[in-house]
C-alpha cells in the first residue's frame, strides 16, 4: 500500500502541552554520534522528536514528547545512555482524553 509519511507535527497540534521552557527533560550528556542503532530513534519516536544533524549527531526537539520512554529503552538496549527524566510537575504532555 502506498502512503506518504504523514506529518507528525500536524498530529501533535491536536494535543495539549505545557512546555517547561529552557528545561528539557531528556538530554544527551556528551555529543552522541548517531550510531545506526540510535538512528532508529528518528523513525520510531512516536512524536518524531529526534533528528540527525548534518554533522551526524543525534538531536532532540522535545516539545511534542509523549514521555513514553521508547527512546530511553532503545538507547539502553544498544548500550548508550540518554538522560531521561519526567518533566517537572504539571509540565509536558497533558492528555485531554488519554
Amino acid at each position, binding site marked *: 500500500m502506498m502512503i506518504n509519511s504523514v506529518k507528525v507535527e500536524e498530529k501533535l497540534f491536536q494535543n495539549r502541552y505545557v512546555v517547561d521552557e529552557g528545561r528539557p527533560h531528556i538530554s544527551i550528556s556528551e555529543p552522541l554520534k548517531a550510531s545506526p542503532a540510535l538512528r532508529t530513534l528518528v523513525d520510531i519516536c512516536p512524536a518524531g522528536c529526534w533528528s540527525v544533524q548534518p554533522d551526524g549527531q543525534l538531536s532532540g526537539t522535545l516539545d511534542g514528547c509523549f514521555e513514553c520512554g521508547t527512546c530511553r529503552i532503545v538507547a539502553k538496549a544498544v548500550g548508550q545512555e540518554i538522560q531521561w527524566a519526567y*518533566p517537572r*510537575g504539571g509540565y509536558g504532555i497533558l492528555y485531554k482524553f*488519554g
Partner: protein
Amino acid sequence: MPERFDAIVVGAGPAGNAAALTLAEAGVSVLLLERGEYPGSKNVQGAIMYADQLQALIPDFRDDAPLERHIVEQRIWMLDDSAHVGTHYRSDGFNEELPNRYTIIRAQFDKWFAKKVQAAGALLICETTVTELLKDGDRVVGVRTDRAGGDIHADVVILADGVNALVAQRSGLRDELKPDNVALAVKEMHFLPEEVIQQRFNIGENEGVVIEAAGTITDGMLGTGFIYTNRESLSVGIGCLVSDFAASKTRPYDLLERFKQHPSIRPLLAGSEVKEYAAHLIPEGGYRAVPKVFGDGWLMAGDAGQFVNSLHREGSNMAMTTGRIAAETVIDLKREGKPMNGRNLSLYRKRLEDSYVMKDLRKYRDLPQVLHRNKQFVTTYPKLLAGAADTWFRVDGVDKRSKERQIVRSFLKGRSLRGLVGDALRLARAVR
C-alpha cells in the same frame, strides 16, 4: 518540619488510586502524588474498564463514574492488505443490569477516581513529580519530589508510577525495560456524533463495540490494532513491540495511518475529527518480566510491576487489584503493629500469587516468547485466512470440492504441514 504520612502512593492511575482509596478508607494517613496537572493527564489506555475489580473498590461506581459505553459486541479481525476475516461475538446478555465491561476515557476516569480517593480522606497533590526515594540505609523512608523542600516521609511508599517505573529504577529497585518486553502503542481520538457511531456499529444508545485487529497491517511486527467505541468518539490505535519497531524502523504514526486507511477500517472513521494523538508503552513481558515488587518500606503495583495480561488486554483491572492488595497488606501490618520491612511486606507477593493476577500471568508465561519467535501468526496466517475466505465465498463456476483443495493447498504452500501442526501445538502450549 518535613511532612510525614503513614503511606505515600506515587501516581494517581488505577493502581495508585486503588491503593490510596483502600488505605484512606481504613483510616491510614495517605498522600497521593501525581505528576500530571490532574489525575489522568499523563495516562493513556484503549480503554476498557472491567467492572468487577472497580466494583470491589467502589460498589456504586455506576452512579457517577464517567463511563462511555458498555460492550455488547467483540470483533476479532484478521486483516490482510485488502480484506478481513473475523469473528464477532454479540449478545444481548451483555445488556445486563450491571454490565461487565465499559469503554472509558482515562483522563476523565482517573480524575473521577481520584475525587473518590480524596473524599475517602487521602491528600492528593498534583503537578509534583517524585524524583527518587528517600532511604535510610536500604530502607525506604519517603520520597523526594521536584519541588523545593520536597522531601516527604512515610512508613511505606507504594510505587504506582506506571510502566517506566523511573522512581524504582533510579533507586536500583528495578531494571530497565527490555525492548521485547514492552509494546509501544499509538492512538487517536476520533470524534463523531453519537448517532453516527450507533448507526455505523449497529448499536443502541450506551452500547459499545470492541474491534481488535491483527495481521499484515503490522507489517510483520507483533502487535494489534483496535477500535473502541466511546459515546461520541472512537479510540483508534495500534501497538507493536518496541523491539519490532526498532528492527523495522517503522514510524508508529505511519503504521497508525496505514491501519486507518485499511479498507475495512476507513469507512468506520469517515468524517471524524481527530482531537488527540497519544503514545504510551504497555508492559507485555508477562509473568517472567514481573520484577521484585516489595522491599524494605516499599511496594510496587500496576504497570510499574508489569502486571498486564497482554493476550486478554487486561491491565487496568490488574492495576486496581495489585494496588488494592498492596494497600491491604499495609493495613494488615499496621493493624498488627508490624514494621514495614521487606520480610513483612513479602506478604504482598504471596497474596498476589493466590489471586487471579499471578495465576493468569503464569498461565500465559510462555506466550510472549512463542509469538515473538513465530511471526507467522501476524504475517502468513492472516493472508492465508483471507485468501481462503475469498476462494470460498467467490462464486465463479469452480466447484466447492476444488475450492476446498485449493484452500488446503494454499495453507500447505504458505506454511507446510509441519509448520501448521507446530504452530497449533506452540499456541496451545502457550495458552493452556
